[in-house]
């Protein structure tokens, strides 16, 4: 069958449509990826902020300013003077058998 002029027009139209669909799909996928990347970045930022906040709270809670008065009040502990603790020397290597 010999293709007539209108057949060619239809073929070109289909090709054009396919190209347009491909471009639009690619663009949409790009936007979707960008959105996903942004969401992940925001999620990471939120998690980092949460971690920093928790670290800060741990740091404050375990700081001497907070911990020492609590230990003194609730456990009756006190800051030791150097005469109240002992530094242990590690055994020398090879000095003992297991």
């Amino acid at each position, binding site marked *: 069958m010999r293709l007539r002029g209108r057949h060619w027009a239809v073929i070109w139209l289909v090709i054009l449509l396919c190209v347009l669909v491909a471009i639009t799909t690619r663009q949409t996928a790009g*936007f979707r990826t*960008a959105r996903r990347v942004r969401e992940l970045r925001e999620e990471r930022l939120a998690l980092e902020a949460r971690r920093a906040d928790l670290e800060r709270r741990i*740091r*404050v809670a375990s700081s001497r300013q907070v911990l020492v008065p609590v230990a003194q009040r609730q456990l009756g502990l006190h800051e030791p003077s*150097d005469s109240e603790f002992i530094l242990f020397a590690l055994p020398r290597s090879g000095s003992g058998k297991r």
Partner: protein
Amino acid sequence: MAKVSHRIAVLQFCFALAVLAVLGRAAYVQVIQRERWAREAEEQRTVRVVLPARRGALYDRNRVPLAITQEFYHVGVAPNELEDIRAGFLLLVRNLGTSAPALDREFQARKRWIYLHGPFNATQVQPLRGVRGIHLDGEFQRFYPSRDLARPIIGGIDPDRSSGAAGLELSLDSILTGRPGEAVFLKDRAGRRYESPGRMVREPVAGNDVVLTLDAELQEIAEQGLDDALVQLKAESGDVVFLDPATGELLALASRQAVEGDHPRASTFTDPFEPGSTAKLFTAAALLVHRRVDTTDAVFAENGQWEMPVNSAGRTRTIHDAHPSKGKLTLAQAIQVSSNIAMAKFASRLSPEEQFETLRDFGFGTPTAAEFPSESRGRFARPDRWQPMYTRASLAMGYEIGVTPVQLASAYAAIANDGVLMAPTLVKEVRDPAGTLLYRHRPEPVRRVISSEIATRLRGFLREAVGEGGTGGRGQLSNYALLGKTGTAKRFEGGRYVEGEYTASFAALFPADHPQLAVIVKIDNPKGSYYGGLTAAPVTRTMLQQALASRRVAIDRGRFATRDSTPEEEPKSADAPAGKPAVVVPWPARLDRPSGSPLPVPSVEGRSVREAALALHRRGFRVNLQGIGRVVRTQPEAGDSAPPGTSVFVYAE
């Protein structure tokens, strides 16, 4: 009437003309004006955005964050865009912690745009993302997780320019600042922006992270100790410096000024003071370097008051000793009792140039070149500006010279470091955002100031200054000896000495053998007892006790125990279990004689060595461990009586 074919021809011609006009215009627009219209279209459809780079973080030596950069947000609300105003309102109140009545008033006022400045962190705004009508405006902000810890040293940033404005934030700005990126966003008719991964022009590069030499735990001890001291002594201001003599690393720098509403400034670097007797050691060093004294040389101490001749015209200067001495004093004794008179007499044996050179070699009069901006060089005049007799004596007593606490710590560290002056530093490491090491500080010797032998002799002087009869006895610890020198100087302000106001100081090296810390404590204008030995020295002792008791402070405790333990001198016992690793308790550094009424030795058999040591210690006994594990017996045995202070040998299986 024209024929139909003619009319059609005319119509076709007009149509052709119109088509040609359109084509011509299209060609003009697309070919000749191409760039202009392309640019205009680009501007309408895209927007070029600068992507800010995250500023690098500052950490302490144990990677405790001291300054980090986080993204914070301002929140804009368009009430007419909200699908459910009530739900949006609750979402904002619940997550941002804003005042409900205040926000309600904003909503009731029917504003088209409500702005909540915040700033709010990423966790707070996370539930608000994607909610129609709520717009987030993010920006990087500096955040200091450890609150005010070391803030005068760390400094701050200029919020307008996001660059360092003071302290280390300023001096390390080029390292901490990243390189901003750039991206092209698509935008629609309404101005909404759409990210597209293919349109990133340049990725932002975060700044480098800097690990400081500061030890957050020791810093906290220093700051707390200084705060307590200022309250207790009703003092105006003060400084504390902890420095590692072997490396020059500054471990803690605390500064406090009791001026209400003012942020503390880093006076450890910026404010020189006259050190008083803590500087006597450096004139002693000059005398030893130039061999103007030997161990037997002594000068008469004038019973505490001396009219020193200042010039040939008979002018004199009265010099007093706070602790008058009768008879003659050697150089070591002059340091021990902190005699101004003896030091002034000894100093007269030096030429101004000799005294100047030695003090200058210790680093006085020049900035230490630590990474802190606006560091003071101190005050130290050249010999050609001296009144020779007068200034020589003044310098020997620690007057007519202004030193910063860091300079003084560095000079004392040189004595601890066998005479080699090390460059003080605040930067331990620099790492890129991926964690790759870019720079690591290596100890940097500046010069050899004195010989190792002279350094050893000077340390001997310091040992006596905190020993029996010395002025610094209250700085001494019970079991781990330190070296130190007290200082008390009249305050020099506005070009004159202020009557009745003093600066008390204490310089210490700890421990006494192979010092790991050089410590300077300076207290300005303490009320009541103002002598350094009664004010700064006890503060130093308290801080060192806390540092020793803390597991996190960078002190090599192994070196204490290993050095102090002398296994070959430990009493050998035939009953000691063979082949067991000996756990040696270095107890004490200074052997005191047992004293007090005898007490029964408690029974600790079957307990762990830790429990046994604690139980015996509570009774006042010293403990010497043999073996590890469960205790099998003690010597003296349980129930035997022994005076407190007696060493109890604990044998464990």
